C-alpha cells in the first residue's frame, strides 16, 4: 500500500505500522487528488478532518482520517491519515465536499475555529459560535483565560448589596 502510494504521487512520505495506521504526508496541491484516489481504492469513509496549530513552525497542519466501509478484514483495520501543512497567515485550502459529502460540517467547523477558508465550499456559515472573536478561538495564541477575564468577569452583578464583585 505504502509503496503503491509513493510510486503514484510525487513528494510524499509515508510511515506507519502498515497494519492499523498509515500516515501520508504530502504537499497541499496533491491532497485533493490523493483523497479521490484513496476513495476509489476503497477508503470511502471520511472519519475526521482535523487541524493542529503548529505555532512554532508558523503552520497549520490539516489531517484527513480515512477508513474503509467494505473491503476485507485487513483493509477495514487500516486507517489512513493524510496530512498537509498550510501557512498560518491567511490560510486557504480546497474543499473536499465534492469527494466526501460529510466533509461539509467539518470544514465549516475548521473555518470557524481555526479561520481556514475552504475554497469552493457551498456555504461557510457559522456553525457553533454566537460571538465574534478577533483570533479564531482554537488557535494557540488565543488565550481563553484572558478572554474570560476580559469579557465575562467584567459584567457586573445586578444587586451589589451582597458585596460581590
Amino acid at each position, binding site marked *: 500500500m505504502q509503496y503503491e502510494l509513493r510510486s503514484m504521487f510525487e513528494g510524499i512520505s509515508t510511515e506507519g505500522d502498515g497494519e492499523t495506521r498509515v500516515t501520508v504526508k504530502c504537499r497541499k496541491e496533491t491532497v485533493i487528488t490523493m483523497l479521490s484516489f484513496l476513495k476509489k481504492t476503497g477508503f470511502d469513509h471520511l472519519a475526521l478532518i482535523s487541524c493542529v496549530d503548529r505555532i512554532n513552525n508558523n503552520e497549520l497542519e490539516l489531517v484527513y482520517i480515512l477508513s474503509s466501509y467494505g473491503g476485507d478484514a485487513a483493509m477495514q483495520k487500516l486507517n489512513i491519515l493524510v496530512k498537509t501543512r498550510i501557512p498560518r497567515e491567511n490560510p486557504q485550502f480546497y474543499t473536499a465536499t465534492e469527494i466526501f459529502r460529510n466533509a461539509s460540517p467539518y470544514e465549516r467547523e475548521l473555518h470557524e475555529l481555526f479561520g481556514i477558508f475552504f475554497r469552493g465550499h457551498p456555504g461557510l456559515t457559522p456553525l*457553533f*459560535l*454566537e460571538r465574534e472573536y478577533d483570533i479564531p*478561538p482554537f488557535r494557540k495564541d*488565543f488565550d*481563553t483565560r484572558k*478572554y474570560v477575564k476580559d469579557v465575562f468577569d467584567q*459584567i457586573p*452583578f*445586578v444587586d451589589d448589596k451582597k458585596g460581590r464583585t
Partner: protein
Amino acid sequence: MDRNNIGKWFKSPGNMGQKYSLHALYFCTGCGIIEIPPTITTRWDAERFGVIPVATPRQANLFLITGYVSVKTLRYIIRSYEQMPEPKYTVGFGSCPINGGMYWDSYNTIKHLDKYIPVDGWIAGCMPRPEAVFVAVTHLWTLIDKGMATGYLKYREHYTKYRRNQEKVLGKLEWPPLFSIEEENEKSREKVAV
C-alpha cells in the same frame, strides 16, 4: 395534602396554587437534563408534588436551568424566561450556572447566570442527584410561603441593568424590551455620581 394547609388555602389560594403545581419548562440547556427523565419517571416521580414538564414557556412557571449555559443558549433562555407568565421561579441546576463550574475558563459559556436573569435558588453539584431536585422544590415551597421567591419582581425592578448585561454578551437584542428602560435616569445618576 397536608391538613394543616387548609387555612392557608383560604388565606392565599394563589400562593398555594403556585406551590403545589410547579410546571417546569422543558428546556435542555445543558447536560443536567440527563437527570430530569429519572426525576419525572417511575423511580422518583416528580408528579407526586405536582411538578411536570410542559411544552411551552407560556404554560410554565418553573424554569430549571439544567447545566452550563453557552452564549448561544443564553439568548433562548432569556426569550423563554420573558415569555413565562408571572409569578415565575428560576432554579439553577448544577454547578455550572452558579459560577461556571468546570468550564470556568471556557470562552463560550457564561459564568454567572444571575447576571442575566434573576435566579431564586441553586442546586450545587455535578451532577446533582434527582433527590436534589426535590430538595430544591421543597426549599422553593418555603420561599414561596415566606414571600421570598421574588426573582420576577427583581427582574422588573432592575430590568435596565439586566438588559444591559444581556446586551453586553449578546450584542443588540432583536426583540423589544419587556419593561420600560430608564435610559436617561441612569445616565443622569451616573453624572451625579461623577
